[in-house]
């Protein structure tokens, strides 16, 4: 039985998606990364509905959440996740360009587990993603139910 810890990346910007995926790949993390391109998609994934209705069950090990997204923004996703008894134990890392203190405060108020400002410098960015991935997807012992057992 192999345990694969899945990462949900909620990010609307294609460049950021590519940079983040590159950084995660660079970190040699074997985790599956699911990309949701807006807040609504992220919620669909978490609630197993819409195009994710048939996805394998189980919660992701961590959600990397951008704040400024179309349709449903990151703070709203965070609010719903932390208000839901089944989802609230999922670690949520806010990964955003915003240095605004208000966003930071609101994120923590809503129960974010970490708040990371994406560094402009690529090396720093790589470092940050690597640390995040290693900590939340590997070192952190996820709550029960977030582990996907794949046959093998």
């Amino acid at each position, binding site marked *: 039985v192999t345990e694969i810890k899945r990462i949900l990346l909620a990010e609307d*910007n294609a*460049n*950021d998606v590519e*940079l983040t995926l*590159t950084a995660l790949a660079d970190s040699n993390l074997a985790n599956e990364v699911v990309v949701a391109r807006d807040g609504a998609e992220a919620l669909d994934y978490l609630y197993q509905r819409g195009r994710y209705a048939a996805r394998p069950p189980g919660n992701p090990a961590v959600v990397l959440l951008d*704040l*400024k997204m179309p349709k449903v923004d990151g703070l709203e996703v965070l609010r719903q996740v932390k208000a839901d008894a089944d989802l609230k134990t999922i670690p949520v890392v806010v990964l*955003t*360009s*915003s*240095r*605004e*203190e208000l966003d930071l405060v609101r994120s923590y108020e809503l129960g974010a587990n970490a708040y990371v400002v*994406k*560094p*402009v*410098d*690529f*090396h720093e*960015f790589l470092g940050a993603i690597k640390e995040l991935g290693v900590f939340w997807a590997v070192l952190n012992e996820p709550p029960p139910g977030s582990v996907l057992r794949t046959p093998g």
Partner: protein
Amino acid sequence: LFESAPGLYLVLAPDLTIVAVSEAYLRATMTKRDEILGRRLFDVFPDNPDDPTATGTHNLRTSLDLVRRDRVANAMAIQKYDIRRPESEGGGFEERFWSPLNSPVLNANGELEYVIHRVEDVTEIVRLKQLDSDQRRLADELRTRAEDEIGRFFSVSLDLLCIAGLDGYFKLLNPAWEKTLGFTTDELVSRPFVDFVHPEDRSRTADQAGKLAADETQIVDFVNRYLCADGSYKWLVWKARSAHGLIYAAARDVTDERLAQEEIRHLNAELEHRVADLGVVNKELEAFSYSVSHDLRAPLRHVTGFSEMLEKRAAGALDDTARRYLSTISESARQMGRLIDDLLSFSRMARAEMRETRLDLSMLVSEVQREFQGRIGNRDVVWKLGHLPHVQADPALLRLVLVNLISNALKYSGMRPRSEIEIAALPNGSDETVVFVRDNGVGFDMRYVEKLFGVFQRLHRQEDFEGTGIGLANVRRIIQRHGGRAWAEGVPDAGATFFFSLPKPKEDQA
């Protein structure tokens, strides 16, 4: 029998020799029978020599002469005829008033036999009357004087004084009315006073007048507008009371105060409006900062990220020039990132909430200085820290000021074999504390001093001294938010001194 008659009688012979007298007469004139009988009347009763206006003997003689000539009775008007007081009772004369009647007594032949002089002593009555009229005169005089005084006050009063009838007309106005409104008194009394009241104030004014007319009451602080001859209106504040069917009122011209108040109200309204506008602008600025923070940083990250990835992937295929281009792209993007971050911090600085407390500036300075000391490695830096007072400031923001100024001092004195940095306060000012940070660095030309504090304004090339040029702009903004000033003095190649002032808390002011 005659002698004991109750009246005052004197019987005179035609030659005015006293031939008989009643007891009552003797008592009234303080004389004795044996002293006056047989003597001439005017010898016994002369005029009071101390009264130069005495007319007693003259009038009596005239009356007696008429009686003797015409042989008919003669009633005299009330006479003042003073009576000699006996020496035994102090001498001199006593003031007396008499009402005399002289009657002839004729014999059978119709010849004059006697003249009977009958008098009534009316001294008491005259005195009472005199007293009465004296009092009346005194009262009249007092009243006149009081009226004069009231009249004088009435005419000199700066306030508008008036008496109005319940018929709605002014009855009496002091000169202040003419002066204040520009109408003559004649004009003012010729029309109902409400005609002069501003149309919008008329019904209120009529209400008040009605209240005064209804019963004797008092009205204070009633305000209305009165028409002036030039068509403008004056604001009057009234105090009035009614009595005896008249309204007594005093008004004060408060037009200037009123206009000043109006002006203040107007300014306040405008200020509130501006503040509201400012709130909107601030909100917009916040939204702007947010989008700068988020939207401008993302593409920069992409520029650096993708150029790094390109370099990694194609490094072998690129020559040195191409690699230099790539690194310039990355470096520029990073610089832009710094600029954006600085701009945001500057805008945050303006909005950050301030929490002012009493701070030990000496402690704060040495704390910041120790931090820098740890970072400057083996550079030779001489610190001169003077005595610094306590100040009232936000600790985090003031720390930022010191970090900026000390970091500048270190940066711009970096080329000296030995940096000298002095931090101290100027000798005591009465209402503000002035702190300076002085270095022995490159200094600057005073012509450009104002550029120092501008956002992203720099006096040195990026290659010579790194930095975005936000530090001093932040310093000035923070100090200004504390109610102080920030300024600088410098000489090219001879160091610079940066000053900032902070207002002293009220209790510390000398």
